[in-house]
């Protein structure tokens, strides 16, 4: 019915008492997400909004509430530590929203996560939404900062590096009556958790996902790796879009990872890889949903 999270997933929020974390926790609660705990060291014993208990540690919050996933809204200097606390406590999923984490901190996090069961989404990402059955898709699981109401429960998987470009794709689908199984924003940093390929494999294995939109951008080679796997293995239709065809080489386009360097990571190479894999390439970002729906 979805990947990574379901409407029943019990979620804790690291950094629940910060203004950004608090605001989005509130929105997730209104959406109907099972936010069962908050974690802010030193504020254990307090309550959030007045039903969500706050704990000093992730381990304690998991033990007391049965949470299995977390949203990280911790400032950049402390975010790597917060992610690893979640890994150490044995969470199934950590979703790190924080933007601006030093790249070497993430290099260390990735090294420390090797061989552990926890999956990481992000950092510098909008998070994950599995839409619910209610009005404006309420009753779903929203971890992060995506607008819940643009979603609709259904059978299209969406994976993207970019936040607002994910919303654009989801909204195009919803406006055409095509709902989503899960939408995942994997983040715009050069070192991150789940890759396009990791998420594509999950969608491919999910019986409730019937088609996939994959949105990429310049920088790195994650899109090419995913395309290569799709060419050899995928049975479901995949449509895609690559942002940054007009970006000048050597310049970082907002996202820390969005840079063409040494002639690598160009939009042209990624689009060529998509085409070679039979992925439907949307000619403009306005055509992402139509390109996929025509293939189904």
């Amino acid at each position, binding site marked *: 019915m979805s990947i990574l999270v379901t409407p029943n997933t019990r979620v804790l929020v690291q950094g629940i008492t910060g203004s950004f974390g608090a605001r989005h926790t509130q929105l997730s609660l209104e959406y109907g997400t099972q936010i069962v705990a908050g974690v802010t060291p030193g504020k254990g014993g307090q309550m959030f909004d007045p039903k969500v208990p706050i704990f000093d540690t992730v381990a304690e919050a998991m033990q007391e509430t049965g949470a299995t996933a977390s949203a990280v809204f911790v400032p*950049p200097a402390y975010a790597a530590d917060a992610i690893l606390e979640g890994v150490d406590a044995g969470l199934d999923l950590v979703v790190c929203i924080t933007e601006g*984490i030093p*790249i070497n901190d993430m290099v260390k996090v990735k*090294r420390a996560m090797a061989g552990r069961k926890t999956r990481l989404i992000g950092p510098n990402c909008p998070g994950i939404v599995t839409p619910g059955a209610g009005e404006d898709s309420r009753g779903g699981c929203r971890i992060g900062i995506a607008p819940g109401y643009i979603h609709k429960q259904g059978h299209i998987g969406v994976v993207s590096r970019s*936040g607002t*470009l*994910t919303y*654009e794709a989801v909204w195009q689908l919803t406006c055409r009556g095509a709902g989503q199984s899960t939408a995942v924003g994997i983040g715009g940093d050069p070192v991150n958790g789940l890759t396009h390929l990791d998420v594509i494999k999950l969608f491919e294995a999910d019986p409730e996902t019937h088609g996939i939109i994959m949105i990429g*951008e310049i920088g790195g080679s994650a899109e090419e790796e995913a395309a290569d796997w799709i060419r050899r293995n995928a049975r479901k239709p995949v449509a895609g879009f690559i942002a940054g065809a007009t970006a000048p080489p050597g310049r970082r386009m907002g996202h820390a990872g969005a840079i063409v360097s040494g002639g690598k990571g160009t939009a042209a190479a990624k689009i060529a890889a998509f085409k070679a894999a039979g992925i439907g390439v949307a000619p*403009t970002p306005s055509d992402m949903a139509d390109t996929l729906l025509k293939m189904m």
Partner: protein
Amino acid sequence: MNTHEYQARQLLGQRMVAQPAWEVCETPDAARAIAAQLLADGATIIAIKSQIHAGGRGKGTFKSGFQGGVRICKTAEDVYEKAHAMLGNVLVTRQTGPEGRLVRKLIIALAPDIRKELYLAVLLDRELSRPVVITSTEGGMDIEEVAARTPEKIIKEPIDPALGMMPYQARKLALALGLKGDLIAQAVKVLLGVYKTWWECDASLVEINPLCIVRTREGNEALLAVDAKLSLDDNALYRHPDLQAMRDLAEEAPLETEAGKFNLNYIQLDGNIACLVNGAGLAMATMDIIQHFGGRPANFLDVGGGASQEQVAAAFRIILQDPNVKGILVNIFGGIMDCNVIASGIVAAVKETGLSLPLVVRLEGNNVQAGNRTLAAAGLTIIRADTMAEAARKVVQAVATG
């Protein structure tokens, strides 16, 4: 953030990376004095190197007509004259664009007797999520060309971040570079020092090109870093006040610096359709769709996920300082942020700046009806669009007929 060569050399020197004797200066008199000292210490040839962030300095030309941002001299007087010709003048290279860069500092260095040029760099391997040390026997050349033409001459050693670079890895690379005898120990010291610089400074790139085998006055061989380039991870600057102090605003585009003050991410391009977008991916996609419909984007501008009215106003002021701009496209997907707040910001900015250029606005998302009503009620000639494609078509058309 990029640094100057002299700053990179300082940071490398602090970590025991051997270099020919050098000093930095800001006046021709100081240049002469440094050269005189180097000559007195036994140097026979002196290199003068203009300090700007762009590459291609050696083949660059000053606007005064003086050739070469890097020159070789044999006397202190010659150093004085060439320093005089460089300092306070604008150097144009293949990387600066026609406007060039003002030279305000010079490196005065001993020019060693070079026997062989090698290449050394440390950067992030995105596929591995680890640092990687890259070396090649083909130094002194464009490494991208070497990689394209003779990939077998690029030697890579990934580093486990939990261990750091181990001496055996440095020895492995030294042998792969064909070094022998005493040069192996010297190479280990250089390699470990360069890796340490990369890690401790939170660099995104450290590059030594060329790393040279030189012949010393005593007739021995030595391994010295003859050039240095260092770029830093902006995300990590907060924990390096010493590196922050190395930022040279004169090397950055003024509008991009101005945008940074308002937490706006702005990159100037050479087209004539400005865009103002929320989110980096959507901002790139907006540039792409302008080009798709036959226009040329004037900039990348991401106002961020939670743009305020003040930020929108600042964004308009910055866009309009680019004299090439003939039309503006605003593309906002207000997921959580209120489209009406953005609409009010646009109306205020248009009134404040007295905008006379065509403006196409596409709002989508939260409270979009109220936002569109605000735009319509303002009595301004704002062209509205419902989709990105419609907005791009309209702005391209407006600029073409404008």
